[in-house]
C-alpha cells in the first residue's frame, strides 16, 4: 500500500530509452470494501485532466466504490494519479448532488419536475427566437462532456438555432493549443504521442507544470529520469516546480515574456546552423520572415526582457539544437499568457526547423487542460466547426448543410464562431438574453470575477445551468438542470494525444438527474428542430447513435473516426485517431511524411496575423501555395499590457495544484484531496516576503485594479517579484459568495485575451501585496509540489502533506506493457488486468 497523497507519482518503475514503460496497476477502493466484494468492473477513463488515463470503475450494490487503472491501455499502462484514484468516483457521490430540476420563483430556486423546467426553457427560447432571432442565444460548455454531447449541441446550435455564440471553457484551457496547430500546420491535430517520452533524448516543458497538471504523464518522465539514460530536461516556468527540480536548465522567466525567450531560441538554432536545411526547404514556408522577426532577439536581449541568464538560454538552445530526438510539451504558462499563440507557434517552429516531427521521440504535444476539451474542438460546440472544418470555406459549410440536411445559410459562417469572452460581453450588453451553461463554473473560472458575477446575475439574462452540484454559477441561474456525470452515462472522449476512450455507464444517476445528451436531445425535440425534409434534426435515441452520426461528420477530415466503434473500444486500449481504412488501428504520430494539412481546400484555417489576429483570408493563403508545407509563423515580442508599477509592484500568476481540478466540483468532495489542499493561499519568494515583513502563514491582501483576495502566504521558491495563487478556491463550500476574505484567484485577473486564440490572459496581471495579520499556522499549501516551502527559509515545523490510511492505494508492477498498434489490435480479449 502506498499513500498516494504523499506519493503523488507513486513508486518508480525505471526504464531505458526505447524501452517500454512498465505496467503498474494502481487501485483504490473504499475502506469498507475489499477486492472480493466488488460486483463488477466497468470500463472508463478518468475525466480529471487531459491525460485520459484508462480505468475500470468498481461497482458494488449499484454504487461506485473504487477504481483501477487499465494495464493494457497505451496512455497510462495501468497507472492513476491522486485525482483519478480518489476524486473520480468519490466526487460523484457528494450528499449535495442535484437530484431534481430547480426553477427560480420570486428570486428563490425551488424544486420542480422536468416538464416544468424544460417548458420554462423552451418558452423563453422560442419567444426570443421569434422576437430577437438566433443571435439572442448563447451556449457555454465545458471540457467535461462526452463527444456525443458536444456533437449533439453543435448540431442543435449550429444547424437548428443557427447561432454563432457557442463556446466552451475549453477557451480557457486549450484554445491556444488548437490555434497554434492551425497556424503552423493548417489544422488542429496533436502531432506527437505520449510514447515519445520513451524514445526522446531531451524534453522541453514550456509553461507546463506536468508534475501537477498531468501527474501520470509525469510518472512516465520520472521513470525515464530514473532509468539508465535519462533525457535532458529544459523547464520554462516562473515557479520552482517539480519539473524545475529535475531540469538541466530552468528558465524562470518573468510572466508575460515568453515570446522574447522563444524568439531567442529560434534565433540561436538558426545562427548556429542547427536547422535541417533540406527539411525546411521541402516542408515549410516563411523562413525569411521568421529569420527577420527573430534577428533582434539575441540571447542577451531576451535575457534582459525575461530576467534570466543569457547562458541558460544558450544552453537550452544547444540542447534543442543538438539532441537527436526532442519532445516538446506546452501548456498554460504559454497558453494563458501574453502573445500566447505567437509563443506556442515558436515551439512548432523549432521542431520544423530541425525536422523533429513524426518520428519516435520527436514530438510536439500542444497539451490540453481538460479531459474532453479535444472533443469540443473536434465537434464544434466551441469556437470551431465540426470535423475541423473551415468557416471561411463555403464548400465546408455546404458539406455540413448536406450532412445535416439544413439550409447552408442557417449555419453561421459569416465570421468566426463567437469566443467565450465575447459571448459574456454580449450578455453584458444585453444582446444575448438566453445563456445555457453546461458542466462549468464561470463564476469562479473566468477572469475578473466581480464583472462575471454581475453579468450572470443580470435580470435581463435568462440563465440555464446544467451541472452535478449547485455551483457558484448554478446559484445565479433561472433554471438548474441536474446532470448525470461520469460513471452514470455512456459516451466517448479523446485525450490530448488523440486517444479515444469509451466510458461506460456503471451506476444509475441520483434522483432524476439526466445525462447531458438526454437533456440536449429533449430540448431539440421540444423545440421541434427539423431538417429540410421535415425529419427531426437530432433523431438519435442514445449515445451510440450520436457517435455513429459523428463518424460520418468526421469522415475524410483529419480527426477521422470512421474506423472506431463502441465495440472496438471495449476491452482493449483506447484508439488514437485518425482511425479509418488507411489507418485501421489508428495512428500514433501525425506528419511522418512531412505533409501537412495546409491544402487550401482541406485546411481548417487560412491563418491570422499573430500580433493582431487579423484573418489572412482565402486569397492570401492560396497565393502562398502552401501545398502541404507547414508555415513558420513569426511575430515580434511586445511587452504585456499590464506591467508592475509603483502601486501594483508585483506580477501575478495563477494555476493549479496537483490535488484539485478546476473549481473543485469533484476534487473538493474527496476528503483526502481536500485535506491535502483545503483552502486558498498565495506564494511569495523569501526576499519579497522579507521586505514586506511577511512570514509563513501570515494573512495577506493581494490587490489588483479589479479586486482583492485575502489568503495566507506560503513563502516558496517562486521567482522574485512574482506571486502565484491557485485558481480552485471559489465559494460553494463557504456560503456561495465572497465574504470578508475573498479567495478566488480570478477576483484579480484581467479581462484580456490572445488576439488569435482568444484565450484569456490568466497568467499576467499587476498586483500589490500587504500583510493583514499574523499567522495562526502554516499556509494550507501542499509541501509535495511547487508550493512547497522555500528551501532558504530555514528550519520550520510545517507538516509534510500526507493522506494517511484513506489515501492508500495498491500498486501492482508487472506484466507485458502495451505497445502500438498491438494494444489496439488485441481488442476485446486483451487489456483487462
Amino acid at each position: 500500500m502506498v499513500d498516494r497523497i504523499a506519493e503523488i507519482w507513486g513508486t518508480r518503475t525505471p526504464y531505458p530509452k526505447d524501452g517500454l514503460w512498465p505496467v503498474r496497476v494502481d487501485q483504490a477502493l473504499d475502506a469498507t470494501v475489499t477486492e472480493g466484494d466488488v460486483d463488477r468492473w466497468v470500463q472508463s477513463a478518468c475525466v480529471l485532466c487531459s491525460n485520459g488515463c484508462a480505468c475500470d470503475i468498481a461497482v458494488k450494490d449499484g454504487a461506485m466504490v473504487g477504481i483501477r487503472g487499465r494495464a493494457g491501455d497505451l496512455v497510462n499502462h495501468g497507472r492513476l494519479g491522486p485525482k483519478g484514484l480518489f476524486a473520480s468516483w468519490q466526487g460523484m457521490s457528494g450528499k449535495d448532488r442535484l437530484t431534481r430540476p430547480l426553477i427560480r420563483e420570486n428570486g428563490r430556486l425551488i424544486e420542480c419536475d422536468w416538464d416544468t423546467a424544460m417548458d420554462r426553457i423552451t418558452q423563453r427560447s422560442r419567444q426570443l427566437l421569434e422576437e430577437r432571432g438566433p443571435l439572442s442565444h448563447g451556449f457555454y460548455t465545458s471540457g467535461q462532456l462526452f463527444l456525443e454531447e458536444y456533437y449533439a449541441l453543435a448540431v442543435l446550435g449550429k444547424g437548428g438555432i443557427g447561432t454563432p455564440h457557442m463556446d466552451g471553457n475549453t477557451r480557457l484551457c486549450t484554445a491556444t493549443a488548437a490555434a497554434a496547430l492551425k497556424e503552423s500546420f493548417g489544422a488542429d491535430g496533436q502531432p506527437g504521442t505520449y510514447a515519445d517520452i520513451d524514445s526522446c533524448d531531451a524534453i522541453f516543458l514550456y509553461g507546463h507544470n506536468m508534475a501537477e497538471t498531468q501527474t501520470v504523464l509525469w510518472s512516465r518522465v520520472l521513470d525515464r529520469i530514473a532509468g539508465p539514460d535519462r533525457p535532458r530536461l529544459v523547464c520554462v516556468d516562473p515557479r520552482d516546480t517539480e519539473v524545475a527540480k529535475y531540469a538541466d536548465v530552468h528558465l524562470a522567466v518573468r510572466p508575460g515574456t515568453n515570446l522574447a525567450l522563444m524568439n531567442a531560441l529560434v534565433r540561436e538554432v538558426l545562427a548556429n546552423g542547427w536547422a535541417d536545411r533540406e527539411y525546411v526547404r521541402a516542408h515549410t514556408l516563411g523562413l525569411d520572415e521568421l529569420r527577420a522577426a527573430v534577428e533582434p532577439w539575441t540571447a542577451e536581449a531576451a535575457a534582459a526582457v525575461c530576467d534570466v541568464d543569457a547562458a541558460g538560454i544558450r544552453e537550452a538552445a544547444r540542447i534543442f539544437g543538438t539532441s537527436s530526438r526532442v519532445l516538446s510539451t506546452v501548456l498554460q504558462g504559454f497558453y494563458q499568457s501574453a502573445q500566447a499563440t505567437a509563443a506556442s507557434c515558436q515551439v512548432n517552429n523549432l521542431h520544423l526547423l530541425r525536422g523533429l516531427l513524426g518520428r519516435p521521440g520527436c514530438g510536439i504535444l500542444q497539451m490540453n487542460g481538460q479531459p474532453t476539451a479535444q472533443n469540443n474542438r473536434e465537434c464544434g460546440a466551441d469556437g470551431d466547426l465540426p470535423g475541423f472544418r473551415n468557416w471561411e470555406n463555403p464548400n465546408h459549410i455546404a458539406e455540413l448543410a448536406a450532412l445535416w440536411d439544413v439550409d447552408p445559410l442557417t449555419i453561421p459562417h459569416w465570421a468566426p464562431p463567437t469566443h467565450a469572452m465575447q459571448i459574456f460581453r454580449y450578455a453584458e450588453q444585453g444582446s444575448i438574453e438566453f445563456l445555457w451553461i453546461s458542466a462549468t463554473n464561470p463564476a469562479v473560472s473566468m477572469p475578473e470575477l466581480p464583472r462575471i458575477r454581475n453579468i450572470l446575475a443580470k435580470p435581463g439574462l435568462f440563465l440555464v445551468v446544467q451541472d452535478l452540484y449547485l455551483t457558484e454559477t448554478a446559484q445565479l441561474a433561472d433554471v438548474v438542470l441536474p446532470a448525470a456525470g461520469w460513471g452514470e452515462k455512456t459516451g466517448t472522449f479523446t485525450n490530448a494525444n488523440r486517444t479515444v476512450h469509451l466510458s461506460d455507464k456503471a451506476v444509475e444517476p441520483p434522483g432524476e438527474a439526466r445525462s447531458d445528451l438526454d437533456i440536449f436531445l429533449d430540448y431539440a425535440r421540444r423545440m421541434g428542430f427539423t431538417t429540410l425534409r421535415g425529419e427531426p434534426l437530432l433523431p438519435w435515441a442514445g449515445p451510440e447513435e450520436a457517435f455513429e452520426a459523428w463518424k460520418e461528420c468526421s469522415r475524410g477530415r483529419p480527426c477521422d473516426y470512421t474506423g472506431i466503434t463502441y465495440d472496438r473500444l471495449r476491452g482493449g486500449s483506447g484508439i488514437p485517431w485518425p482511425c479509418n481504412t488507411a489507418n485501421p488501428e489508428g495512428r500514433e504520430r501525425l506528419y511522418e511524411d512531412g505533409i501537412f494539412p495546409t491544402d487550401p481546400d482541406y485546411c481548417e484555417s487560412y491563418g491570422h496575423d499573430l500580433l493582431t489576429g487579423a484573418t489572412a483570408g482565402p486569397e492570401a493563403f492560396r497565393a502562398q501555395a502552401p501545398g502541404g508545407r507547414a508555415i513558420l509563423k513569426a511575430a515580434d515580442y511586445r511587452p504585456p499590457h499590464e506591467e508592475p508599477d509603483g502601486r501594483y509592484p508585483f506580477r501575478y500568476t495563477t494555476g493549479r495544484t496537483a490535488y484539485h481540478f478546476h473549481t473543485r466540483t469533484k476534487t473538493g468532495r474527496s476528503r483526502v484531496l481536500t485535506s491535502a489542499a483545503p483552502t486558498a493561499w498565495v506564494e511569495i519568494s523569501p526576499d519579497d516576503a522579507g521586505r514586506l515583513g511577511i512570514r509563513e502563514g501570515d494573512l495577506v491582501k493581494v490587490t489588483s485594479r479589479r479586486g482583492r483576495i485575502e489568503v495566507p502566504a506560503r513563502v516558496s521558491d517562486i521567482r522574485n517579484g512574482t506571486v502565484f495563487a491557485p485558481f480552485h478556491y471559489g465559494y460553494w463550500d463557504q456560503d456561495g459568495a465572497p465574504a470578508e476574505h475573498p479567495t478566488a484567484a480570478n477576483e484579480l485577473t484581467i479581462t484580456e485575451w490572445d488576439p488569435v486564440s482568444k484565450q484569456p490572459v490568466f497568467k499576467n496581471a499587476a498586483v500589490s501585496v500587504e500583510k493583514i495579520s499574523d499567522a495562526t499556522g502554516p499556509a494550507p499549501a501542499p509541501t509535495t509540489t511547487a508550493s512547497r516551502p522555500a528551501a532558504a527559509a530555514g528550519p520550520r515545523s510545517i507538516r509534510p502533506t500526507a493522506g494517511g490510511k484513506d489515501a492508500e492505494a495498491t500498486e501492482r508492477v508487472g506484466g507485458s506493457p502495451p505497445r502500438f498498434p498491438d494494444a489496439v489490435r488485441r481488442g476485446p480479449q486483451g487489456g483487462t488486468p
Partner: protein
Amino acid sequence: MNLKIYLGMLRKAEQTLAESFRQVAAGHAAEPDVHFLCHTLATQCEEHSRLLLPVVQRYGEDPSDNEPERIHAEGLSATRQGPVGLLRDLQDLYLLASLVDVTWAMVKQAGSALRDRELLDVVSRCDGETAVQLRWLQTRMKQAAPQALVVAR
C-alpha cells in the same frame, strides 16, 4: 519636387491615425481587444511617422500644400457609444487607415522612380503593417456587425 507634398501628407495622416486609434482605445475601453490593440497600432503609426522624418527632412517639409484638401481626414472628433457606435468608429478608423495605405503606395511609386533606397526601405518597413491594420479592422468589424446591426438594443 511634389513628392514632398505627399510625404508631408503621409506623416500627417499617420499622426492623425495614431491619435484616432488612441481615441477609440479610450472610448471603447470596455472592449478589451479593441482597447489594447488600438494602443498597439497607435504606437505603430507613431513609429511610421518617426521613420519617415529623415526622408521628409531630406526632401524638405512643404506644409504649403497647394492642392487643397477636398476630403478632410481630420481624425475622430469624439468616439461613439454602444455596439453600433463601436462599429462606426472602427469604420472611421478604416477610412483613415485606407488613406494612409494608398498614400504609402503613391510614395512607394515615387521612391521607385527616384531609386531612393532609403525611402523604399522605410516603405517596406511600414506599408505591410498598415495593410495588417486594415485587415484587423475588417476582421473586427465583420465580427461585430451582425450583433450590432441585428440584435443590439
